[in-house]
């Protein structure tokens, strides 16, 4: 009983090595093939990715909770240490914000009066869906996060995602119970933006680093560090005026934007449905190729 398998194995050993090497090369080719397919047919890949994300979402959801609790506990301890200084700072800020609130109320009333006078077409109503970030992945090769809400919770492809500090990205793959957000820093992200004070238009392109760049600006248009960058609403994908970031550096290499959102502080985000989506599907596919210049 013991003899037969061993003679068989002895005979099969060279064959096994051959098969193994063949499998290895075959798999390498398959991986190459997958990359080519991914480049050619993004729809198929995105759909598969959405399904895989959906399948793993419950695990990520469960595992991310203790991590959140732990980091929150650490934060609490750290906060306790400088609670007095923080209190003083907040009091000062509160006083400043009260002034702003008064100014804002006055401007809001004024604005509404003017809009009524001019018969302005109002922006469509916004509905928000809040979701928790259950995964944050990719460094040099992609920037995306996964939310614990999907189509079942009203999340749709193309919705704008907002964090506490500003514009975060857009929904790139909505599954049934989880969805993937393409961050504004991802290399595939192209956001039509405008410099808030000068109204200079540009396209903000991610490059997988922390600082996206502004494209399609003219040399004659003066852009200086410190200016606020907000969405322009062009193209109809996102509404105008969402805070995106601040111009951080203007060099020969390009104009860098420091986004308001900080990845490590994304815990809950809002997917906002502005009722605008529609052109995204076809437009974004061509994005990386056409916007590369």
């Amino acid at each position, binding site marked *: 009983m013991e003899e037969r398998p061993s003679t068989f194995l002895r005979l099969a050993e060279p064959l096994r090595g051959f098969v193994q090497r063949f*499998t290895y090369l075959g798999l390498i080719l398959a991986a190459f093939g997958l990359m080519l*397919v*991914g480049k050619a047919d993004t729809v198929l890949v995105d759909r598969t*990715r959405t399904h895989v994300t959906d399948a793993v979402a419950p695990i990520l959801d469960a*595992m991310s909770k203790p991590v959140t609790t732990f980091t929150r506990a650490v934060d609490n301890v750290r906060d306790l240490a400088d609670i007095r200084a923080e209190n003083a700072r907040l009091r000062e800020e509160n006083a400043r914000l009260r002034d702003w609130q008064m100014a804002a109320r006055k401007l809001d009333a004024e604005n509404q009066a003017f809009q009524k006078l001019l018969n302005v077409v109002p922006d469509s109503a916004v509905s928000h869906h809040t979701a928790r970030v259950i*995964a944050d992945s990719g460094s*040099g*090769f*992609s920037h995306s996060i996964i939310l614990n809400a999907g189509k079942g919770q009203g999340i749709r492809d193309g919705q704008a995602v907002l964090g506490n500090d500003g514009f975060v990205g857009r929904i790139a793959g909505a599954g049934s119970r989880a969805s993937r957000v393409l961050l504004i820093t991802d290399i595939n992200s192209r956001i039509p933006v405008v410099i808030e004070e000068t109204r200079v238009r540009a396209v903000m392109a991610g490059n997988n680093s922390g600082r996206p760049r502004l494209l399609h600006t003219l040399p004659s248009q003066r852009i200086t560090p410190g200016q606020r960058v907000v969405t322009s609403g062009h193209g109809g994908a996102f509404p105008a005026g969402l805070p995106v970031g601040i111009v951080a550096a203007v060099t020969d290499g390009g104009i860098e934007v420091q986004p308001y959102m900080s990845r490590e502080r994304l815990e809950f985000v809002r997917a906002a449905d502005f009722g605008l989506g529609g052109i995204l599907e076809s437009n974004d596919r061509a994005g990386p190729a056409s916007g*590369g210049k």
Partner: protein
Amino acid sequence: MRREFFLRLDRLARNLTPFGLTLALIILGMLPVRIPDYASVAPILAAISLYHWAVYRPHLLPFVAVFLLGVAQDMLSGAPVGLFALVFLTFYGAVVLQRRFLAGKSFPVYWLGFAIVWFLATLELWVLASAFHVTLLDMKAFLFQYLVTAGLFPFVAWIFLRWQQAFLQQA
């Protein structure tokens, strides 16, 4: 009869250990850790697991499994599909070729072996990702990610060596 069944179940569990642990590390690597700038340098823990099994138990982790793990990493991390499948396969293949040299060596040599081969794999990752996007990607992120992964190696590798001694003596 019953004993036979449990023995088989036990063997199955042992054989699935490397795959399961690597997959767990891939998922673990996705968790949102709220440390400033952590996300951009998050280590690729699965590489450490692949290295360990390539050196000590390559027959428990066939190439097909490595390929599947790579695809899982691609799918979850949002990287171009096939990128990590390719990098994991070449990395794993290279380590398997060198395993006779690496097995049983002192820990610093074992660590150095990982540092060298994973550095080459990181370069491959950068070249492939840049080629995929037809642009030169920022290399800093890749380098920092490499440093964090290599720096975390002793901790993860130690757990794996322990695990192996505890559960896979006879495998």
